[in-house]
């Protein structure tokens, strides 16, 4: 672990059930995330990415190993971490306005009202939804709802932002817009981000570093990404280095998926 490490995962293992029926979802992940880093985690679908994320977020207890944030052992959801879930329609509360959704966690922190309202307005502006606080989530489009979920996480002021396939349920154009929005937020705040995705292009486009997971989840390979920033949907993706990187990651994930369908790994 180096000095700039914010999030440290050490020998994390998660097994469901016991005896011969036991299923291993996470099989010994060791991983450090540096302060201000944008780390993407990719892997074949169903490789236990979500279980790994739930363990990091303190929503599930690991069977073995530890997760620490700022040298604090994670045993419950840590205050320094905010989550953006894949399914925006189930993660925003439809009975509350956008504003109420964003300030609900802040009320629990007993922040004064002016501070809460200020943070909510700022976060909404940061995701390009300024002035829409009075709307209800279901009055917004899919992309706007996911932006509200990002705003809620930003207003929480975490050190680490954890994103679980956040753009998997929106159309391609919205997805590209949201990627650029998130990069823009990251450039301005330099939050530490761990971004789980099954989309290799997305990982290559966004990341400082890509972790390829095997199945069940373990670190198969770590790839440093040195594509220039700021990134651009057309220019960056036209670079030969982008094509090389994409091809490399694709082969790595595909080999893993092939190994699994050949019957080597458990179906998790």
């Amino acid at each position, binding site marked *: 672990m180096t000095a700039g490490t914010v999030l440290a995962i050490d020998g994390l293992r998660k097994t469901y059930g016991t005896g011969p029926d036991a299923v291993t979802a996470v099989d010994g992940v060791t991983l450090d995330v540096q302060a201000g880093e944008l780390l993407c985690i990719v892997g074949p679908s169903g490789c236990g990415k979500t279980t790994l994320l*739930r363990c990091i*977020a*303190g*929503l599930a207890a690991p069977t073995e190993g530890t997760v620490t944030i700022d040298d604090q052992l994670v045993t419950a*959801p840590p*205050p320094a*971490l*905010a*989550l953006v*879930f894949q*399914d925006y*329609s*189930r*993660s925003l*509360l*439809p*009975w*509350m306005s956008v504003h109420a959704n964003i300030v*609900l*966690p802040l*009320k*629990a*922190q007993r922040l004064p009202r002016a501070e809460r309202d200020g943070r909510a307005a700022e976060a909404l502006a940061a995701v390009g939804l300024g002035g829409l606080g009075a709307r*209800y*989530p*279901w*009055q917004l489009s899919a992309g706007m709802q996911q932006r509200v979920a990002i705003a*809620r996480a930003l207003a*929480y002021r975490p050190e680490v932002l954890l994103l679980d396939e956040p753009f998997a349920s929106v159309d391609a154009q919205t997805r590209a817009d949201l990627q650029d929005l998130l990069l823009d937020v990251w450039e301005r705040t330099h939050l530490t981000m761990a971004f789980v995705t099954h989309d290799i292009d997305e990982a290559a486009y966004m990341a400082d570093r890509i972790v390829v997971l095997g199945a069940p989840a373990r670190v198969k390979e770590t790839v440093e990404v040195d594509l220039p920033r700021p990134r651009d949907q057309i220019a960056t993706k036209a670079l030969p280095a982008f094509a090389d990187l994409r091809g490399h990651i694709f082969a790595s994930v595909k080999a893993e998926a092939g190994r699994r369908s050949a019957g080597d790994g458990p179906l998790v």
Partner: protein
Amino acid sequence: MTTAPLGRLARRLPVLAGRSALQLLVPAGLLLLWWRTSADSTSYLYPPAREVIESLREEWLADRFSSDILPSLRRFGEGFVLAAVIGVVAGTLIGLVPRLQRATQPVTELVRSIPPPLLFPFALVVFGIGDGSKVALIALGSVWPVLLNTVDGVRGVDPHVLDVARSFRIGRWREVTRVVLPAASPKIVAGLRIALSVALLLMVVSEMRGGTDGIGFRIRSAERTFDTAASYAGVIVIGAIGLVANLVFVVIEGRLMRWHRGARGRVDEIEGRGALA
């Protein structure tokens, strides 16, 4: 832009008028039929409609309004509110704690299977012959739909939503009041609506069984003195109370559940079923 909705309203106006005319047609026809067929009736079981209306105006809406209708309404209201509060609070606790559900299930299954009017003697023994036993019977009978629907709703909350609540550390109290209860509210409201009609039924039953005032008591004594017109008028009063209570409920439900219809409509739209018809 602003004229478009107005134009649409203007086009829809004849349709709306036609629809309400249709809705008024059947009741008006039935009233007329009743009035005509009963006008010369000499059977005490089928008094002239005019006598029923007279009783309604001169007895029920005069002296009996404060001596009988108001006490009945108070019992109905108290019993229903008691059932709603107990049902939601106990249902939430039972729904949140699986062990509590296992412990209480045999008793709740048994008691809710007993037709509530049969519990009246029990209520009399425990709460005395006054208003207490009547309110208790109303609450005891109408608590079940609220309780069972609340348990069902609380247990059915999407675990994903609870993950959100926990990861943002909103605390147990906020988790229950701001997340679990709203998520369960469509089911709770459905239970309350059933409870409303059960409460009205039990109000009448408890007043017919005993007491010295109330709509049920007056209907029963009118029947015993062969004053059929007065007892029919009492039935109309009960019907009107049920109608108004339901209307009030629908208005409140519409306000509270706006998000639910909105979110549903949105889902329908996404899944290609079209918005609310």
